[in-house]
């Protein structure tokens, strides 16, 4: 039953405009970045610019990595929140929860299907971003060897590392989606859930600049910090510690968020 409910959650997402809004943002952002790089090319020796930006003119393979870097500030939390924050609350908005909860699928199956659909969407948006980045970067700068923090890797090795980077990036991105599902379930209001998720992500990022916090230690526990963990893959020898830490922190955030949302969804009165 969960499988059928999941299939329908995906079909419902496919029928809504907001789904394409997020996917379009994930697809358009790399193109905007590539155009910006073409208009104002960065200088390879500029120490103020992000590492991969310095090489974006030489190799289009730097573009997906730049997107991961830039999207982690607000774009991807927004894309994740846009759908995950809506997935339960929209049922309240449409008053359809009573319609689906009086059929033969239990509340647990419906909730699992919704979480799985939200996660599917996040992964689809990431995939969209990586594909568009590769195409746009490739067309603009060509597919050439990519400098890393320690060495220069071949295009095939770079593609492997890019795939790994997106996989590592997906972990905290799914964590953010889990928080959005929690807000969506508890607030019963799509806008509140989307804004709440964005605020939570921004508050976590604020730990970088608040002097009152030992920002280094605090940041280690912030979910948004884990959106940078993929960079460890570009060191030689490969450093797995930040990747494992990112996985751990993602689970630490996602599991309680989903557990609270689950209990709330199973026990709540559907009175609207």
């Amino acid at each position, binding site marked *: 039953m969960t499988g059928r409910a999941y299939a329908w959650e995906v079909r419902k997402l496919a029928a809504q405009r907001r789904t394409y809004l997020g996917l379009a943002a994930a697809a358009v952002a790399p193109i905007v970045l590539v155009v910006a790089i073409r208009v104002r090319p960065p200088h390879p020796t500029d120490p103020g610019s992000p590492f991969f930006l310095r090489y974006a003119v030489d190799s289009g393979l730097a573009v997906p990595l730049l997107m991961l870097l830039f999207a982690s500030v607000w774009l991807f939390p927004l894309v994740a929140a846009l759908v995950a924050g809506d997935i339960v609350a929209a049922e309240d908005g449409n008053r359809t929860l009573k319609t689906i909860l009086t059929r033969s699928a239990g509340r647990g199956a419906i909730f699992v299907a919704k979480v799985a659909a939200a996660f599917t969407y996040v992964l689809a948006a990431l995939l969209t971003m990586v594909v568009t980045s590769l195409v746009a970067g490739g067309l603009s700068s060509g597919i050439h060897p990519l400098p890393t923090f320690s060495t220069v890797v071949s295009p095939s090795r770079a593609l492997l590392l890019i795939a790994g980077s997106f996989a590592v990036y997906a972990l905290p991105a799914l964590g953010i989606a889990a928080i959005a599902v929690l807000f969506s379930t508890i607030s019963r209001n799509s806008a509140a859930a989307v804004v709440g998720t964005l605020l939570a992500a921004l508050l976590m990022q604020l730990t970088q600049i608040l002097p009152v916090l030992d920002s280094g230690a605090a940041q280690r526990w912030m979910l948004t910090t884990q959106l940078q963990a993929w960079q460890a893959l570009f060191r030689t020898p490969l450093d797995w510690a930040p990747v494992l830490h990112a996985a751990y922190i993602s689970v630490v955030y996602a599991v309680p968020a989903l557990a609270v949302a689950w209990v709330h969804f199973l026990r709540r*009165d559907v009175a609207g």
Partner: protein
Amino acid sequence: MTAAAPVELRGLRKTYGELVAVDDVTLTVAAGDVYGYLGPNGAGKTTSLRMMLGLITPTEGEVRLFGEDPIADPVAALADVAGFVEEPAFYPYLTGRRNLELLAALDGSDGERIDEVLRLVELDGRAGDRVRGYSHGMRQRLGLAAALMRRPRLLLLDEPTTGLDPAGMRDMRDLVRRLAGEGITILLSTHLMSEVEQLCNRLAIIQLGRIRYEGELADLVARADGRYRLDATDPARAAEICRATPGIRDVSEEDGSVRFAAGAAAAATVSVRLAQDGIGVRALVPGGRSLEERFFEITEGEG
């Protein structure tokens, strides 16, 4: 072993803080009943229905649908049950047919009955339109289609004719009658007494969350037997004559009519005396109190 009743409510109570929405509701809907759940707006009908469908948890008491608890195991309890509370709700961005396909999938069905139920509610011509463009009446009919798709043995309908035009109301009532004729037990929540009179064999009257009457519709109306409504050319003088006639009791004047209780012989005597007194009788109607009047007697504390 006796089969469990389609609906059994025992001491059902729901509170929201200080507000008591449903208070100690006990009733049984037997197989084959078309059961009216009658009460004014805000009486607790919809809250009761939500508890029956497992959507909200009772504060106290229990609900059983065919012997199963819809709170503890909604999937088992609702296996033979369908219906809707308030206005049926659907995904506005999906077509009517897509909505039914989704609900069929959640029932574990391939939706083989979709065409049949769409035809039944006369929505087959608009099934390809998005629900956001549907009128209230079309949504009501789609709600009924969604319910019937499950081949239920029990239908719980909350104000199914609300917001429909007269033709729509007639069609909905005809459909309910037809479904009842097919042996489906129906619990019909409504504030329309005419609906209960036309469709139901049993009813409960609920007011301020409490059941005021529960039983056969015929029994309730029978309590009005022996009553008469008299329309005369001089109501005040007619009332005096009634009061002076042996065997006539409970005489009152309401809305220009005289109402009284009497045996058939006493009523005949009154008509003769009125004529002798030169008072014209426009109407002398037995069973002078309708369900509506009985309803108000009960809910206003006279029953």
